[in-house]
């Protein structure tokens, strides 16, 4: 007799932004042809890389901090249910309400109902990957509620009816003249004489947002950290818009991925050093807002925390893959990735682009739904070195490649190669046959289409090494 509880569910299809419409190479094809995009990306990633490298070099204990961050995350994952229950208990004690959402559909339904109950037809939003992941904005809009992104880059993306292409700098693919056009077209009440001078653009956004902050009663945020021992939530940001959303409205709804919990306040000392240096290249982020339940007469009086799974338990169930949940969304791996630098974030199809997206997205959706992503890497390893919590992304990519479905022809070719290489005499004959095939003008080496587009094949030498050795 047995009771089968089933495997943890992956993120559901048909909702959210974790799956692309086409495989990575096809999406990358368009990005690679866009000279402007590649220039924008090269400039931005090179700048962030340099800045981040300089401030990291200031810390003599950076490697120890990385190890500490990784160890805290490993501890969190090893007792996640207990920590989440502790977090829930503390939040409730302090007057908050906790909701558990198994997936995107449930989270969207919970948040939509909470907003409806307030009677507000508009919400202000703090930039949040979790709500992007579940496509909360689309769900709210479908319910007649207008979500307004208040992070400048997120606002640019929203007004441009675009998708974010970077975890931290969602509008990294846009330059200032493009931003001016987007504002002129879509920002309510914008001055038609707007120029593309960055301070002018920022002032336009500021004016629009200030009015929105002061007239909206409901805010929705994500959370960078949730401290189990006190029930405190934390958001780190650079512009102050988050602070406004987290303090001005009557109602605050926070959607937090379940892996964001940390055991104690003291654990924050590690992450608040790691995160800004790895992500924006700052010694400390300008705004860190923390709140615990509700405080009478101060800040939102109605606080809801939505704990989101959406495939995370499935990731946790894989011993080789689970460290993807260590990710603190700093995007250091994106900024050092040579593939991301050339293709940008849209090519990955998911809100999580770059190296971490290439391992996280397929795990959240099930590998078969994002089968091209684990291959969107040259395995150069720069991401592993850059990761502030030491996620071994290259090994995880290899692990996921071994789970991904393979084209039949590729399987046959790999089998044949392995069969030949298992047999030294056959292998030596194949080496000679390769040469004959080349002489006959065929692609005898199995280096197929794609190679010849950009590179010449090496001349096949007169003699293999082993024949040379035998003739010595």
């Amino acid at each position, binding site marked *: 007799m047995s009771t089968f509880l089933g495997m943890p569910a992956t993120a559901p299809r048909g909702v959210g932004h974790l799956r692309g419409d086409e495989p990575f190479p096809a999406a990358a094809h368009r990005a690679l042809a866009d000279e402007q995009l590649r220039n924008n990306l090269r400039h931005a990633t090179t700048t962030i890389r340099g800045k981040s490298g300089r401030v990291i070099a200031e810390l003599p204990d950076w490697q120890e901090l990385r190890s500490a961050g990784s160890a805290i995350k490993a501890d969190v994952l090893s007792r996640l249910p207990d920590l989440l229950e502790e977090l829930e208990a503390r939040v409730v004690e302090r007057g908050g309400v906790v909701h558990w959402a198994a997936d995107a559909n449930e989270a969207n339904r919970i948040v939509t109902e909470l907003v409806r109950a307030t009677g507000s037809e508009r919400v202000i939003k703090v930039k949040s990957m979790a709500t992007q992941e579940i496509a909360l904005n689309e769900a709210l809009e479908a319910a007649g509620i207008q979500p307004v992104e208040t992070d400048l880059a997120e606002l640019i993306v929203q007004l441009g009816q675009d998708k974010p292409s970077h975890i931290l700098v969602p509008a990294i693919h846009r330059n200032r003249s493009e931003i001016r056009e987007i504002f002129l077209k879509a920002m309510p009440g914008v001055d038609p004489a707007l120029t593309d001078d960055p301070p002018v653009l920022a002032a336009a956004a500021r004016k629009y947002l200030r009015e929105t902050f002061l007239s909206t009663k409901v805010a929705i945020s994500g959370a960078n950290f949730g401290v189990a021992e006190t029930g405190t939530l934390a958001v780190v940001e650079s512009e102050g818009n988050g602070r406004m959303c987290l303090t001005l409205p009557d109602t605050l709804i926070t959607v937090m991925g379940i892996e964001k919990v940390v055991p104690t306040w003291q654990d924050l000392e590690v992450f608040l050093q790691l995160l800004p240096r790895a992500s924006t290249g700052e010694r400390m982020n300008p705004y860190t807002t923390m709140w615990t339940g509700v405080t009478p007469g101060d800040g939102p009086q109605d606080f809801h925390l939505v704990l989101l799974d959406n495939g995370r338990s499935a990731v946790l169930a894989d011993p080789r893959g689970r460290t993807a949940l260590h990710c603190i969304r700093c995007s250091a791996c994106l900024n050092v990735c*040579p593939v991301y630098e*050339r293709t940008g974030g849209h090519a990955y199809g998911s809100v999580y682009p770059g190296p971490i997206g290439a391992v996280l997205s397929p795990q959240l959706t099930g590998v078969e739904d994002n089968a091209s992503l684990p291959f969107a890497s040259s395995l150069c390893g720069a991401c592993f070195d850059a990761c502030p919590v030491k996620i071994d992304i290259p090994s995880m990519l290899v692990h996921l*490649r071994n789970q991904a479905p393979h084209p039949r022809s590729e399987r046959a070719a790999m089998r044949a190669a*392995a069969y*030949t290489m298992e047999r*030294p005499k056959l292998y030596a004959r194949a080496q000679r046959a390769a040469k004959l095939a080349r002489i006959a003008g065929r692609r005898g080496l199995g280096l197929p289409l794609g190679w010849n*587009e950009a*590179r010449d094949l090496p001349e096949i030498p007169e003699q293999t090494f082993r024949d040379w050795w035998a003739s010595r």
Partner: protein
Amino acid sequence: MRIALFATCLADTLFPEAAKATVRLLERLGHEVVFPFDQTCCGQMHVNTGFQRDAVPLVKRYVSTFDPFDVIVAPSGSCVGSIRHQHAMVAADAGEAGLAARAEDVGRRTYELSELLIDVLQVEDVGARYPHRVTYHPTCHSLRMIRVGDKPLRLLRRVRGLELVELPAAEQCCGFGGTFSVKNAETSAAMLADKMTAIVSTGASVCTAGDASCLMHLGGGLSRRDAGVRTVHLAEILAST
């Protein structure tokens, strides 16, 4: 010292000069080189392309071929990285704990050429002469998987007549990545284009590296571009007199 050579399938088949140079160099330094004929391939291509199970017999073959030797050398940071960091995992995942332990042990005795020269044989000046302007590309797996650090540069600096010029953005991947170069050919070509621009900007006549695979990719691109820069394996420079 008696040193077993793992030529790697790529050098054996396509770039025998790199493997021959390794032999000439080590013999010139007074060592005995052995080439076990049962060797074929480390299996990295299978593991990294998602065919890990097909790599199990190749791991077995590598371990049984090289277990009898105390010191093994390969002119490839990438293959050494795979042997050291993937072989035991492949064996363990296949449920072969005994093989995993042996693979780990053989992996510890397998060295990339610059590691062998500096760490084991403790020689920096190999007595080479190579009167050319040379730039060095620190291939990703040498750099980040086995951490050879500046060992190749230390060896190159002691080569007579050689003018070493620094490669801009040296630590960026050249875009090869094994089957990545075929599965994501366009992205690979874009990475290659930037790397070639960096190489050409140095004014070097030779680009060297410790991996025949990256050099095949770079060499194929430079030849197509008719850039006037040759790719030469590190072993060939160190073996020349």
